[in-house]
């Protein structure tokens, strides 16, 4: 990617947007998403830290498995891991130049995500119907807050994936490499969301 600024063009050419910079070895969005994920580690970390502090300071702390739906959550864990595989397969197919297969796998990812959210919805409504609300005790408070925030992150990912299935797919026509990079970057975000759940599941449901 040559490092000339293009004066007089409609859109400014930013160097290393698509091809990696030689000395760092990464392209801009790759570094950008990892930095963003670093901040997300601190965000969820703060909530984990809050959980630890609240739990150790509590006189009594209910056990998640006593009333939460462990089976549904286990199912959800499988679904999310599956969605991680589908997105990395999507990216691989795009690298092979196959937009069609890429889109199929992205759609599979979205499907898994929606199944996760629906299952979550069932879980929440069951808890509410048993009068287990965030305000009932701090365990439930932190449970709803952490899974809720996680769920919002899933929703955010779904919206971005839908964009890339829809209007965003036009980019493939004139810049397939850039499109592939975008899917890689969203995929990294998606794996992180899966990673958070991998820790959330045992800590909230099994301890």
């Amino acid at each position, binding site marked *: 990617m040559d*490092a000339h*600024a293009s004066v*007089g063009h409609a859109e400014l050419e930013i160097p290393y947007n698509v091809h990696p910079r030689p000395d760092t070895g990464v392209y801009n969005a790759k570094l950008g998403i990892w930095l963003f994920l670093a901040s997300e580690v*601190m965000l969820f970390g*703060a909530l984990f830290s809050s959980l630890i502090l609240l739990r150790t300071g509590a006189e009594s702390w209910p056990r998640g498995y006593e009333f939460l739906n462990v089976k549904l959550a286990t199912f959800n864990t499988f679904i999310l891991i599956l969605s991680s595989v589908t997105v990395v397969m999507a990216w691989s197919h795009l690298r092979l130049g196959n937009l069609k297969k890429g889109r199929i796998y992205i759609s599979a990812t979205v499907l898994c995500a929606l199944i996760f959210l629906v299952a979550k919805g069932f879980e929440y409504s069951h808890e509410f119907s048993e009068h287990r609300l965030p305000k009932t005790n701090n365990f439930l*408070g932190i449970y709803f*807050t952490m899974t809720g925030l996680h769920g919002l992150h899933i929703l955010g990912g779904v919206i971005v994936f839908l964009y890339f299935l829809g209007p965003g797919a036009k980019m493939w026509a004139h810049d397939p490499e850039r499109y592939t990079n975008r899917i890689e970057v969203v995929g990294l975000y998606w794996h992180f969301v899966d990673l958070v759940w991998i820790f959330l599941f045992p800590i909230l449901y099994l301890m």
Partner: protein
Amino acid sequence: MGLRRQIRVGSQWMYADEAHRALREALRVMDDEHSEHGGHHQPWIRRYVFSTDHKWIGIQYGFTALCFLLLGFCLMILMRLQLGWPGQPFAIMKLLGATRAPGGILLPEAYNQLGAMHGTIMIFLGIVPLAVGAFGNYLVPLQIGAPDMAFPKLNMASYWCYLPGGLIMLASFLAPGGTAQSGWTSYPPLSVIASQGQTWWLIGMVFLITSSLLGSVNFIVTIIQLRAKGLSYMRFPFFVHAQFVTSFLLLLAFPPLEAAAVLQLMDRLAGTSFFLPSGLVVSGQALTNAGGGNPLLWQHLFWFLAHPEVYVLILPAMGIVAEIIANGTRKPLWGYKSMVFATVFLGFMSFVVWAHHMFLTGMGTTISAFFQTTTMIISIPSVIILSSLFISLWGGSIRFTTPMLFALAFLPMFGIGGLTGLPLGLAAADIHLHDTYYVIGHFHYVVAPGTIFAMFAGIYYWFPKATGRKLNEFWGRVHFWISFVCINGIFFPMFAQGLAGVSRRLYDGGMQYQHAKQIAAQTNPFMSICAIGLLAAQVPFIFNFFYNAIAAAFGNRDEGLGSNPWGATTMEWAATTSPPLAHGNFEVLPVVYRGPYEYSVPGSEVDFIPQHQPAAIEPAPRGGLLPEKAVAMREN
């Protein structure tokens, strides 16, 4: 590389290639203005409202932040009127309405609202957006030779998260029961049971934190990925290092506060008890919530951010001062390498000192000793940076321009602020000083005659780059001297007040307490008068700023100024015009051949060599002209 040909254009000598470039650019601009279908004729709203150009976004941030700074200052003036003359009616208080100031006398609840919002507005809506959003955005891509930020649209999104966040904060004043009134620190349980305004405060904070996060990602990627060829890390202007570390602080320290804000919103809106202990009784009535929470949890999460936050406030300021001192002394910074390593170390340590704000929360001796130790250690890099800046003055040929005056004043002022922090960092001394006016004096010294003076220095210094006009020197000096005297008059007595035991956040300034009455009565009126003087000192600055900004907007440049009126070496001055090219910053991206502060290089005809210049300037063809040009620049 050989001699570069110079030609005379009007009254100025220019390098021939620069002259040709300028001519090409002038023709392009003319062409642009005359063509309807010229490639990038943007609609007004995309060019000036939702701009993706880092320079314009920097100006948006700057203008918005200065307005917020003035607002926060006015809130403080109202507070100081109450502190100087407690219980007295003031006509101006009537602006706050009958619920807050019946008959023009400020109520204690209203005083608390002013206090909480003064702090919040100054820090989150004023200084950080100015230091990072304005100066950082405008200068970093130029200083590293980049065409723009790595993610221009994300940059635009950052500003458009900041502005709504700020407006939500302002809207909180209209909430029933008033705005947030639990301090800028929003400690629970008070903040959880506070009125609706606190909820708006929390929502506003979420917007502001998001804006910061997006911005910090942009800065870090830009600095690492888009720096020009030849610009290694140790050739960065110190300002870029400062912004780099600041961005890491914003990136990694803000999320816990975002988490805390979510938890507090849950406590307030969903009835959870994350921060509410069991058995809490408010106004005689026991709370019905589940309890079991911990107010200290908020303090940990809050200060985890808020301590790195104070380094976010000071590092860009140090960056600005470093640039101006190197330029104003015509010599390289002393100890540049140490300053860089000190900055990085400072950034790292800032994550492990936060509980020195919590020494009085019932901490045991082990944990107190730990935080006391880390706090003492973190003072070392600050000392290294300040000392290096002081030593940089030695042997310099100092030009006492307005930016230099502000930059020089920064040094002892930050020194006082830093030194007065030491007793606060020592747990034993902090027992006496915590939550007194000593703390207020300490942090205001660092932020007000510290950071804000550096901000002023930066405005006077870079105004010609952004507009092509210099601010008026005479009124700049008036602004400086009156501000300098008044600001010390406000904050220095606070140390005495604090040592005498005057607590902070008292709406009568201590008059209700026997031990505080005398010193409060002796010092508060004087401090309030100085505050009014400080406000008056800003008037010439505001006029100076707007007069010249509007003149520049109408195309009235300073004809004789040139693109590098201060004779500076860094790329934002030397490689582009004033103001810089609208699109892409540089005709051709510069290549860097040398360090950032090649001033007064022995053997050079001119007393500065820009970073992107391959060889020293050779004498002008007819001899004697170029040294004169250098003299003319020195005189400027």
